[in-house]
């Protein structure tokens, strides 16, 4: 299923999200969220957890909410653009990998975006 067809995914972020504001674009989208919530409340209720649920599929290796241990790459707090570029490079083969080139191909672009946005909003745990 192409998630991009369903609704503007940006609206999915909870208004109380603690992620950093990244310029004017962020303000505009946050402002739009309540309107979308009125228009499609049931969809929003589900979508609010989409990034969380998808990101949880990474936690087995990359730690709960992206706080990895050992040799695994921590994902908590990674900028969304950086993660998306990395996933795209895994998919294309530009970035050599042991396993991530195979796993990245299992997610749609919209899902990758939801995952990246979720991890970007996570605080790295104190070590």
């Amino acid at each position, binding site marked *: *299923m192409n*998630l991009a067809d*369903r609704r503007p995914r940006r609206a999915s972020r909870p208004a109380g999200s603690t992620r950093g504001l990244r310029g004017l674009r962020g303000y505009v989208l946050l402002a739009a969220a309540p309107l979308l*919530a*009125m228009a499609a*409340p*049931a*969809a*929003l*209720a*589900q979508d609010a*957890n*989409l990034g*969380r*649920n*998808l990101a*949880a*599929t*990474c*936690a*087995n*290796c*990359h*730690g*709960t909410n992206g706080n*990895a*241990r*050992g*040799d*695994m790459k921590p994902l908590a707090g990674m900028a969304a653009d950086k993660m998306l570029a990395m996933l795209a490079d895994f998919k294309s083969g530009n970035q050599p990998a*042991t*396993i991530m080139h*195979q*796993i*990245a*191909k*299992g*997610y749609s672009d919209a*899902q990758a975006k939801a995952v990246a946005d979720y991890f970007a909003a996570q605080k790295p745990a104190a070590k």
Partner: protein
Amino acid sequence: MTLHNPNTPAPRGTSRRRILGAGAAGIAVGTLGLAGCASMGGAPIGRVVVVGGGYGGATVARYLRLWGGNVDVTLIERNDTFVSCPISNLVLGGHKQIADVTRGYDGLRMAGVKVVKAEVTAVDAAGKKVRTSAGEFAYDRLVLSPGVDFMTEGVAGLQAALDSGRVQHAWKAGPQTLALRRQLEAMPDGGVYAMCIPLAPYRCPPGPYERACMVASYFKTAKPRSKVLVLDANPDITSKAGLFRKAWADHYAGIIEYKANAVLREVAGTTAKLEFEDVKADVLNVIPNQRAGDIARSAGIVNANNRWVGVNWLTTESTAAKGIHVLGDSTLSAPGMPKSGHMANQQAKVAAAAIIALLRGEPVNATPVVVNTCYSFVTARDVVHVASVHQFDAKDATFKTVPGSGGVSAAANQIEGRYALSWADNIWADALAG
């Protein structure tokens, strides 16, 4: 898009929740607001009892607390500690100690899970309670994650051999792992270790072939005249076949011998009797045929091939009983989905999200995704993996592997040896909250 699972009744409990559940489509903005308040404190949004503290059960308990806010979660487990099957083959090879694959439940306790050491004796689905050796526990939703139990009928002498300790399965990590290790240590050089592999499906498809590598790695240095005999009921190696064959040729030539279509008929002493030959071993290790854990059978929810529990993959709720969710090896696997600890952990997150939504009267996630990764050690340091990604297919109402995704290692390598151990550290912490 599925808003409400039609097979799932409206959540029970307070009238407030019922009203909100029934009116979710119309007054969902209000629902969201109240759900937000509920997660900050006040009365629990529901009671969930989880049976079995392995990869599936521990993870669902942890994530119900992590994501659900105020969910009353009780985890019932018969053992004091979590002992991981993944990595436990390294204990057999002498490369790890059992303590290295053992973790406690204190992290879950700190996360607010009530961890109860008890044996579940019965599930009262109508009365919504489980009976245990430590009393009764009422629930709004029950999660069974009992793993597998063994089907020894059909193999004469097997149950008695297992009961006596003469033959180990070591397919549940713990005392059996240590007992098998002791047998290997006691075996004289020049002896034969034989392992019988059941027909698929069984827990951990690559596990037996990794075990052959680990035992062979021990023999290679400690008992170089000894043999590893792999008696496989399947027509070929069931997972990562090319990689295992290469590892056996590269590292264990003259030690590992493989026989396909070797269906075990009878166990006599440490002799494995196959259809056309008897194989005399010094150490016989039989991995029996498997089915859903016994508690699933006694709960009356084994409804697939008289072995497994069919579930609705959007919620992991049993197709045989409302309000009972089932995780991990006990389930009738979706196509291409292995029975693995990693997969049980992933299913547990689908379950946790769905149970919280159901308790709140909200729609469940209509597009869940699960991933599997299994690392196998072919030497003490070299590892191979198999990975797969499974997206929910609404039309066929099941998970399907994504075409073009997943795969296996190009070759055994030591980088993945490090990743495999880090995988264990991360998934244990993810499941056990510590």
